[in-house]
């Protein structure tokens, strides 16, 4: 099935690239969505059945696949709105959609991959396809963003490769021959600790650029800022998940070795630093979209902390990731409406949104409460559990620091959001304000409500999936 999926997706993207007709463009994207959903449903029903040697839909992959399929629908919808509103020439539109299809396809493949190198290849593919999206606007700033994104991601992907090389050294010594996750996991206990450590360090550092964690989070911020909002929504959710998957799959292997505690410490440090950096910049940032990007860094930091502190925290980390990937796109989609109204993303120039776009303002308000994890936001549930795991693992100081930082973040976030909602903008001419139909906000409401629903009343299936996803980790 995956073979058919990859080929048809590839064909669709090529068609999208060459197509000049708007209607056909719509048709093709709808076709891709059908393909994506069909594929997702198929894989859901064929859980743990290896396909084409390198692809196994395990629980984690299925969770992320479903999220991707959910998020891609509004993403395409808003992409069309975006392209129509900016009156794209067919050539650019073609590149945009083709790149997006490739991005989604490679993400799906990377989720499903059961081989460390295959994951790595598809991750590299996502870098390339997303850079086409970042460069969509074709001005010097987007060029700069693209350049940095490619540059930093290439270096980090090289780091991952070096990590894989070290890992292979370790594998050779424990008598393994392949780099399938399963094989690595079973051989993990016998590996040379030194090489595994080095491998983990390099792979972890490499994937942080995708996952949006300290130390390599930097380029992702620029990417989310410069990409069109629907694309940024993907970057802020499903693309970050691939970084997480890369780390998590290797973390599973580590968990079978004696260096688990060491790895946990690194992840804890990274998590705290990420939240810290997010705090620094959320207090400081002047661009609303970048603020949302930093907010993602914060959430990924929390997820790492949850994963590192063990116990219930692992469940919470996955849950948090799921909720984050649903909530963050809503914010970015909304950002698209904002920039259509104001032609700007600078907080200084935004304001009185409540007056110009009531529905959108409500989305922002709603999203603010959801994303900052105020109860009854679903993310509060996961944060609660993460805090609990921190508490139970005895990291009181970390807990206190995190709580202080989170409070600062809410303050910064709230300050900017409310300024934008209610205070008059500076030098804004409101004569020709674009009227935005409330219909465009429906998807955001749906996504955000899903966050509450999943958080407060997670479907039984989901709980089972999450539990089986973390079943390899020691209890």
């Amino acid at each position: 099935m995956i073979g058919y999926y990859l080929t048809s997706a590839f064909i669709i993207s090529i068609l999208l690239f060459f197509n000049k007709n708007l209607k056909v463009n719509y048709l093709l994207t709808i076709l891709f969505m059908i393909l994506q959903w069909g594929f997702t449903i198929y894989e859901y029903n064929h859980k743990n059945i290896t396909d084409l040697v390198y692809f196994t839909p395990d629980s984690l992959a299925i969770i992320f696949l479903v999220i991707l399929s959910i998020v891609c629908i509004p993403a395409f919808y808003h992409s069309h709105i975006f392209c129509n509103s900016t009156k794209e020439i067919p050539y650019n539109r073609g590149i945009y959609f083709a790149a997006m299809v490739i991005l989604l396809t490679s993400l799906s493949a990377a989720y499903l991959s059961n081989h460390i190198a295959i994951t790595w290849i598809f991750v590299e593919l996502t870098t390339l396809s997303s850079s086409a999206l970042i460069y969509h606007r074709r001005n010097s700033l987007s060029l700069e963003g693209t350049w940095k994104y490619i540059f930093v991601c290439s270096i980090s992907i090289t780091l991952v490769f070096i990590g894989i090389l070290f890992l292979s050294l370790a594998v050779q010594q424990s008598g393994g021959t392949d780099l399938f996750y399963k094989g690595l996991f079973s051989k993990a206990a016998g590996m040379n600790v030194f090489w595994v450590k080095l491998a983990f360090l390099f792979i972890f550092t490499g994937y942080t650029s995708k996952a949006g964690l300290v130390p390599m989070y930097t380029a992702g911020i620029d990417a989310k800022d410069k990409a069109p909002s629907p694309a940024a929504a993907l970057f802020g959710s499903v693309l970050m998940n691939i970084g997480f998957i890369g780390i998590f799959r290797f973390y599973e292997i580590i968990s079978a070795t004696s260096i688990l505690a060491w790895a946990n410490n690194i992840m804890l440090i990274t998590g705290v630093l990420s939240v810290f950096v997010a705090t620094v910049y959320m207090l400081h940032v002047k661009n609303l979209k970048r603020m949302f990007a930093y907010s993602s860094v914060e959430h990924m930091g929390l997820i790492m902390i949850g994963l590192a502190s063990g116990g219930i925290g692992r469940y919470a980390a996955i849950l948090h990731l799921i909720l984050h990937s649903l909530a963050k796109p809503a914010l970015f989609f909304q950002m698209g409406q904002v920039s259509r109204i104001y032609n700007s993303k600078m907080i200084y120039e935004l304001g009185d949104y409540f007056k110009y776009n009531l529905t959108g303002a409500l989305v922002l308000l709603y999203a603010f409460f959801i994303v900052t994890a105020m109860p009854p936001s679903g993310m509060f549930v996961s944060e609660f559990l993460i805090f609990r795991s921190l508490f139970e693992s005895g990291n009181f100081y970390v807990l206190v620091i995190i709580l202080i930082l989170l409070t600062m973040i809410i303050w910064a976030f709230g300050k900017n959001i409310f300024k934008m909602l209610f205070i008059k903008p500076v030098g804004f001419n409101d004569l020709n304000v674009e009227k935005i139909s409330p219909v465009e906000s429906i998807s955001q409401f749906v996504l955000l409500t899903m966050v509450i629903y999943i958080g407060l009343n997670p479907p039984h299936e989901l709980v089972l999936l999450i539990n089986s996803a973390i079943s390899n980790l020691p209890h």
Partner: protein
Amino acid sequence: MTNILLIIFTISLIYLGVANRLKSYIAVISFQGIILFGVAFIELIEINWLNLVLILLETIVFKTIVIPYFLNYIIKKNKITREAEPFLPDFLSVVIITVIILGSFLLSNTINDPKLKKIFFVVALSALFTGLYIIVSRRKIITHVMGFLVIENGVFVLSMAVGNEMPMLVNIGILLDIFASVFLLGIFVNKIGDVLKEGDVEHLSKLKD
């Protein structure tokens, strides 16, 4: 033989520190390609021929000829000034690169692994960190690409260390190398030169908070 080649490779790294003309950098990269070809040929002679051909093609055609040519083309097309313009004096660069090599050496000495070909490890790490050092310490964007290429060479050496049993990995590494370099350079050639007449890093630092 490999040892000698690798030592020459390391010396070329030190030379990168003192070189202050872009031309010299290109020459060094091209030269490294040749050395890598030699190493690969000796080391990987036993693996199947298809892989071997691929590797050789990659080192000779790609690393030694195409990319240096490409770099030259860019420099000419965009009228980039010929100096590398480092932030730090050359003397310090040499010292730092020497320290990097020494450090790698010390690090590899702490490893207790009979299977490891230590020389590969040392050279690979040195190339990796030297590449990073060049990226960090040079002002021009094109030198970033060169630094990246040096890192790639280091990765190649490292993959050689495990390549005997892992042919697939080496191939993937090559794939990555080709893809990323081409892509990076492609963008570089087409766009940055058009937008910014001067390929200075300072011009690419507007996106910040």
